[in-house]
């Protein structure tokens, strides 16, 4: 029996289908008699619907028209809270709120019709900022505009201020960001009242859609079927919103009796679907004169938009990551997710952590400067060590060595020599260069007790031909699920890569292995694949069909004999928390994550003081992620995440106009292109994690967390200007430099 696939860059399982155009995305699917669906949106950020009228010149009798009153079940998108309607009924709370659905066989006419629907909405005063929401200028949600708040307490932070040698305060802000998956959102639904509802589409979480459709139609589980079509990227943007589109397509299909396809174009996808939560973080930090953290007080607020959606969980991850990979005896974190009249913000790679880590890693550079230490020396004195506890009281049990990661990153980036050279050469230059870094971690899997609640299941089934099928709801969205599951199953069973088949996620045939989010697919679900594979093997060994040291041919014989005598050969595995893991939701105390990935990222930038343009010239990403299952896919995750984070830091500026995304086109929402992204040099450290498959941990979100603060720290190193927000547009850098110049003149 051989193990040879994990750690090797085997070809992607679905790579051939994708490069040859065989892969079928939802917009490639055409059903007989299919209609196209479109959504009429509120266009008013907050108000009451007074009337809906259908303009002249459109053959309305040819159209299927759906409003809230056509909903057979519950009019909410079932997720955490039940506050977001599928179709506005009376009140509208953001400008992209769906009000009317239309379907017609001719999609261009549909667009004319969409423009001809007039909504009469009585406008109410909207709230657009975190401050206005916190100050309850208007109560727009619940009793206090708060979707969720958390409080984390460690030690006694109130006592540290009196004995601190330094107290440093700061406020930091991050903007919204659009996921920009290549394939826009889309769904096809077939819905027949007596038979049930089936949807095909682009998604990350088939069972989220399944749950939402059950409530929307009042149907039992077996009358709702959700099938993932090939999916062109997600980044969190297809975690929850597909439930909305699936519901819309299904409502139109239910009423018309025909299959209905809804595909968003880029402008609708950018404007209406979820984006990363904007944030504001305030830090107050007490430090001793020998550079030790004494106390941290952190106030973290995210803008959730108009409805709850996933904000409580995004807030949770952001809260837990807010103190970073440091040891501090006294910590208080207060965090809140507030309502505004923007389209709901949602999941996006990093899920709250990029926001709070940006704030911390900028703030710690200011703290270091205040006490006269270099950024690296200050961090060295405070990195968390094995045996120490995090802010939630989690004892670090693994052999974490942040100092080593930092040292390696600084050597690989030539940090010390370059900072010295730039300091010498920058003066008098129009183009100024700088170096910056950030140290951070990312918890893998669901937060706290989340994985226990999910209780994910994976099933493996062997065929008489000795092939093994993996049945899971975990989706391939471009990141490599199919490939790594095949590697894990094949190595566990000692089979060839091609002997493993991954079944397409379909709620009628795969068990619920949980959502494809939270860097959990490899570590958590991959471990279930491994366990189920070992279970399959044990069944064959225990039944006497499989000898020790078997060959693939022996495995095939064993499967055939087993199935002939006993029927189907299946093995399933359900999530069990690692021993010793405890979490208390009420006190927000305990082991927030089974484990973390750890990293230090270094950026080299050039700031052009003629145009205030910033370019990233070099990027070194060093991380400890447990065993790397597939080196090419893993490096690709890091490179892609860093590129996305460069966009977050420097380019991707959502321009809001009365709660609507004003720049919802790729020509004016600026993402970096290949020429704006430097070489990204990726280095892995591998400390195997006992509860991941072959020792792997999660890594998909990690690269989103550290690049932005590293880049902004480098801008500070180049220019001497301390910037406290992202994105850093040339316009805002110009203003920041002007303020600094004036301060220098006055001094």
């Amino acid at each position, binding site marked *: 029996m051989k193990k040879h696939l994990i750690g090797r860059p085997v070809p992607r399982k679905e790579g051939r289908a994708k490069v040859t155009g065989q892969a079928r995305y939802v917009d490639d699917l055409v059903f007989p008699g299919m209609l196209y669906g479109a959504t009429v949106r509120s266009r008013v950020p907050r108000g009451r619907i007074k009337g809906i009228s259908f303009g002249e010149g459109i053959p309305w009798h040819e159209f299927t028209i759906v409003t809230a009153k056509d909903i057979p079940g519950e009019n909410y998108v079932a997720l955490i809270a039940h506050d977001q309607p599928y179709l506005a009924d009376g009140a509208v709370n953001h400008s992209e709120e769906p009000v009317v659905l239309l379907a017609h066989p001719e*999609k*261009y*006419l549909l*667009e*004319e019709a969409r*423009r001809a629907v007039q909504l009469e909405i009585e406008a109410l005063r909207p709230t657009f900022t975190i401050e206005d929401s916190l100050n309850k200028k208007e109560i727009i949600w619940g009793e206090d505009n708060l979707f969720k708040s958390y409080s984390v307490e460690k030690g006694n932070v109130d006592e540290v201020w009196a004995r601190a040698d330094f107290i440093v305060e700061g406020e930091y802000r991050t903007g919204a960001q659009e996921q920009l998956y290549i394939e826009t959102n889309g769904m096809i639904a077939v819905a027949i009242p007596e038979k049930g509802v089936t949807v095909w589409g682009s998604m990350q979480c088939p069972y989220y859609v399944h749950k939402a459709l059950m409530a929307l139609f009042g149907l039992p589980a077996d009358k709702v079927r959700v099938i993932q079509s090939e999916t062109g990227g997600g980044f969190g943007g297809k975690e929850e919103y597909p439930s909305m589109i699936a519901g819309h397509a299904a409502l139109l299909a239910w009423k018309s009796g025909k299959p209905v396809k809804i595909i968003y*174009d880029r*402008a609708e996808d950018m404007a209406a679907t979820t984006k990363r939560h904007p944030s504001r973080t305030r830090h107050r930090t007490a430090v001793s004169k020998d550079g030790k953290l004494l106390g941290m007080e952190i106030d973290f607020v995210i803008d959730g938009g108009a409805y709850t959606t996933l904000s409580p969980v995004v807030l949770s991850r952001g809260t837990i990551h807010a103190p970073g990979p440091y040891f501090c005896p006294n910590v208080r974190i207060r965090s809140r997710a507030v309502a505004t009249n923007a389209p709901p913000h949602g999941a996006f790679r990093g899920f709250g952590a990029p926001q709070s880590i940006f704030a911390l890693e900028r703030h710690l550079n200011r703290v270091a400067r205040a006490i006269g230490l270099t950024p690296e020396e200050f961090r060295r004195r405070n990195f968390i060590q094995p045996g120490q506890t995090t802010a939630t009281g989690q004892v670090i049990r693994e052999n974490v060595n942040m100092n080593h990661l930092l040292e390696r990153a600084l050597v690989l980036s030539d940090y010390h020599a370059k900072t010295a050279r730039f300091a010498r050469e920058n003066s008098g230059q*129009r*183009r100024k260069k700088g170096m910056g870094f950030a140290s951070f971690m990312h918890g893998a899997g669901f937060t706290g007790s989340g994985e226990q609640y999910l209780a994910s299941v994976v099933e493996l089934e062997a065929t008489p031909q000795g092939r093994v099928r993996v049945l899971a709801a975990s989706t391939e969205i471009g990141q490599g699920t199919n490939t790594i599951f095949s590697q894990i199953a094949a190595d566990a069973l000692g089979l060839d890569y091609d002997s493993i088949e991954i079944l397409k996620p379909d709620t009628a045939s795969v068990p619920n292995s949980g959502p494809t989010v939270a860097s959990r697919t490899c570590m958590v679900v991959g471990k279930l694949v491994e366990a189920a594979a070992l279970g399959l093997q044990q069944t064959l060994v225990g039944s006497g069909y499989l000898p020790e040291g078997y060959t693939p041919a022996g495995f095939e014989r064993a499967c055939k004999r087993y199935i002939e005598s006993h029927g189907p050969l299946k093995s399933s595995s359900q999530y069990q928390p690692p021993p010793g893991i405890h979490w208390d939701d009420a006190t927000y105390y305990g082991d927030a994550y089974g484990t973390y990935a750890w990293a230090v990222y270094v950026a080299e930038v050039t700031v052009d*003081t*003629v*145009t*205030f*343009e910033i*370019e990233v010239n070099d990027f070194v990403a060093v991380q400890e992620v447990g065993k790397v299952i597939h080196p090419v896919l893993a490096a690709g995750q890091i490179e892609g995440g860093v590129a996305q984070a460069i966009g977050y830091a420097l*380019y991707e500026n959502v*321009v809001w106009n009365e709660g609507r995304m*004003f*720049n919802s*086109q790729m*020509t*004016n929402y*600026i993402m*970096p*292109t290949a*020429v*704006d992204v430097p070489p990204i040099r990726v280095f892995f450290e591998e400390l195997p994690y006992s509860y991941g498959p072959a020792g792997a941990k999660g890594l998909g979100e990690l690269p989103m967390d550290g690049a932005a603060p590293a880049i902004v720290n480098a801008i500070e190193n180049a220019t001497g200007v301390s910037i406290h927000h992202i994105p850093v547009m*040339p*316009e805002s850098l*110009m*203003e920041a430099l002007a303020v600094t110049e004036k301060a220098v003149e006055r001094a």
Partner: protein
Amino acid sequence: MRSYVPAYELRAPQSLEAALELLEREPDVWRPLAGGTDLMVLFEAGKLTHRKFLSIWKLSELKGVEVTPEHVTLGALTTYTQVQAHAVLQREFPLLCQAARETGGIATQNRGTLAGNIVNGSPAADSPPALLVYDAQIELVSARGSRWVPYQGFHTGYKTMVLRPEEIIRRIRLPRTKQGWRQYYRKVGTRKAQAISKVCFAGSAQMQHNTIRDIRMALGSVAPIVLRCARTEAALRSQKVSAGAFAAAKEVLAQEITPIDDMRSTAAYRLRVAQNLLEEFLLQLQNNGGDESHRGLAAAES
């Protein structure tokens, strides 16, 4: 695709004569469509309000580049790709080549045309600043005849121009009179490629020792039209390059341009960067060519 396709009409005449006849017969009804790189974006977004188009893309009368001792004359349909590839343009009109290189992506460069860039009338267009610096003239043709007009003055306001409804641009002529002039072009976009200008600067100057004998400057994205900065030029003409002359010129430039806040940038940024680019241009004159490694300095002396 948000436009209702059946609502649009497209005609494709086989000759320039036929196209001009149609325009003459029904002026303001038919609008010429060349490479379509601007119109197709509006079409996709459902924002193309005009409905009747006349494709001129295949008209050979509007193609080709002709070189005489006095002029280089470019057909209206000369694409950005063709501009970049032309040896004489590369040698004598490097600012135009650089503008073409920095416009859109390769697909846009293959389809987008110089005349299309002009009549689209965007103040953020990349090639017009270079055309202004080179004292370009354009030939307007209708069924009744043709006329040459200087490009300077062609745009009369935001998206308005001296072109009559029955006319189209036939050719663009560049006088070969700038040999030996120093040249500078810098587009400041929202990123390094595939970007629309926030500020675009083209400059050219004829130097005699340390004195500016003659100068041309034009900026994009700082006014309702791409602007030839005649007053700033006047403030610099016959001046010795010096810190004092720079400061004075920057003041005049601030009076001459009228930048605005929009989705892409701010008036304050555009003003400051326009002044900084002017300074960079002038420093280059002072430094006798300056720092060749700098990407903004497209300097080419011929």
